[in-house]
């Protein structure tokens, strides 16, 4: 009975994972498709030509470049701003920390349409022309909260005795921060930055409201989907997927090895 129960759950988990991966298999398979018409919805035959010519569709390369630029810049800025906020919230008791927490929490629970719409209203009111800059502003904004939450989780479990030890050994506050605190919380900062990068490169709704004439990769897919779905979209989608999984996998393996080393030592 117990054996059945145990395996029932495992079987269920495998089925659930298959369901999760079903559309991904479709995306990958159709990147090798050779569609006859403009739409890539039915299987016509195997080809490698989409992979050999991933930017063989006008506008795709530029859109991807814009997306990557915005993802790098916005995750960088959001990581700096978010880490500073997380440090303040965990390390110090101060007036207004409740309000600060609220201000971090509320943007995460605001529907994307509403956030996009409010930024649009602001830019219209201030007569700021929409484009690369406004997309960047918006992406930094929605990323900050996620970085704060990720870094804070790492800081909460931090053993402050390590810092005290450094101070006892004659290190000043700055030296302690750069040599002890920062290296120890770095995995959290890196995780926050990667999350921000992933959220940025995938964002459609908020960008759609604030892009002006600038086109990011998701906006390109959206625009393309009305008139055609070139298989190159699947090639880029598959590539982003593979890169992201590789990065995450490396991070897991490195941290696994590190924790095993600590246990062994």
């Amino acid at each position: 009975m117990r054996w059945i129960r145990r395996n029932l759950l495992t079987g269920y988990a495998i089925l659930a994972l298959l369901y999760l991966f079903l559309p991904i298999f479709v995306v990958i398979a159709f990147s090798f498709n050779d569609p006859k018409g403009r739409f890539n919805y039915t299987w016509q035959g195997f080809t490698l030509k989409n992979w050999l010519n991933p930017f063989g569709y006008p506008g795709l390369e530029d859109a991807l470049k814009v997306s990557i630029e915005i993802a790098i810049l916005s995750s960088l800025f959001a990581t700096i701003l978010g880490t500073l906020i997380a440090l303040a919230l965990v390390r110090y008791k101060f007036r207004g920390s409740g309000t600060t927490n609220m201000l971090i929490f509320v943007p995460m629970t605001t529907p994307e349409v509403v956030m996009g719409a409010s930024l649009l209203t602001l830019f219209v009111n201030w007569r700021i022309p929409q484009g690369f800059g406004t997309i960047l502003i918006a992406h930094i904004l929605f990323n900050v909260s996620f970085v704060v939450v990720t870094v804070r989780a790492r800081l909460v479990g931090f053993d402050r005795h390590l810092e005290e030890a450094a101070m006892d050994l004659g290190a000043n506050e700055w030296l302690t921060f750069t040599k002890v605190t920062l290296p120890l919380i770095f995995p959290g900062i890196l995780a926050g930055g990667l999350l921000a990068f992933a959220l940025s490169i995938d964002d459609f709704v908020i960008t759609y409201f604030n892009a002006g004439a600038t086109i990011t990769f998701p906006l390109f897919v959206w625009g393309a989907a009305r008139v055609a779905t070139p298989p190159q979209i699947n090639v880029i989608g598959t590539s982003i997927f593979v890169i992201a999984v590789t990065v995450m996998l490396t991070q897991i393996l490195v941290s696994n090895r590190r924790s095993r080393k600590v246990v062994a030592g």
Partner: protein
Amino acid sequence: MLHRRKWAIPYLLLAPGMLWLILFFVVPMWYLGKMSLSSGLFPIFSFDWAWGNFSNAISEYQTQFIRSGEYAAIATAIALVLSYPLAYWIAFRGGRWKSLFLLLVISPFFVTYLIRTLAWETILSDNGIVVHTLQDLHILGPNGRLLATSAAVIAGITYNFLPFMVLPLYVSLEQIDHRLIEAAEDLYASRPRAFARVTLPLSLPGVFAGVLLTFIPAAGDFINAQLLGTPRQYMIGNVIQSEFLAVRDYPTAAALSFILMAAILFLVLVFARVLGTERLTVAA
């Protein structure tokens, strides 16, 4: 000298980030609020306490509001039922491969949202395997479709927001001290009873956070309805989007946005009361 400066440190750390949040979140919300009470035609709107915008918005788009609530609630419920056993399996049976399994669960979501949804369009399409199989089994009529139905839109929403359910559930299940469950069993609780009295209550913070994080984006979504449905499945997100970007009736769109936020806030508070976990909002 050092002592006098110390109180300022947290504020200095906060300043740049908070400035950003105030300038680009709080101030825009204020402008959106002002816009919702304005009247006029694009591009000139004037603020004149036009409360009529709200009553007009509600009476005109009541159907879409109710539909958004329904779709989001159904999708959230299905996501919870799907995710709980999965999160439980990873947390309790994952062993040292836990983080690897977790990566496996979230990795499909590294494929761009729109591409994922387009893939569902392919899977559910009229010439696809799923439709043909269901037709052969006579579950679906010969002209039956999956695309352009409420079911397709709800399925798309469920799929797209699943990680927001799985992750908080996993975090709360993973933190449970196994000795508590063993203690319950030592005291002759059956396994289902130990689950119902120990594991489930201890995982409620995760359930609460997961439901919240799934329901909110689901209620505001418009991509699934647009790609997998027809105007008959349009949700309030579709209306807000087209009022802002196509019709350019900013005041109505702004009023709709505020009603959506207020409705979500109301539902969240009711839900918190029902679950008896008001304190958990802080933890979430």
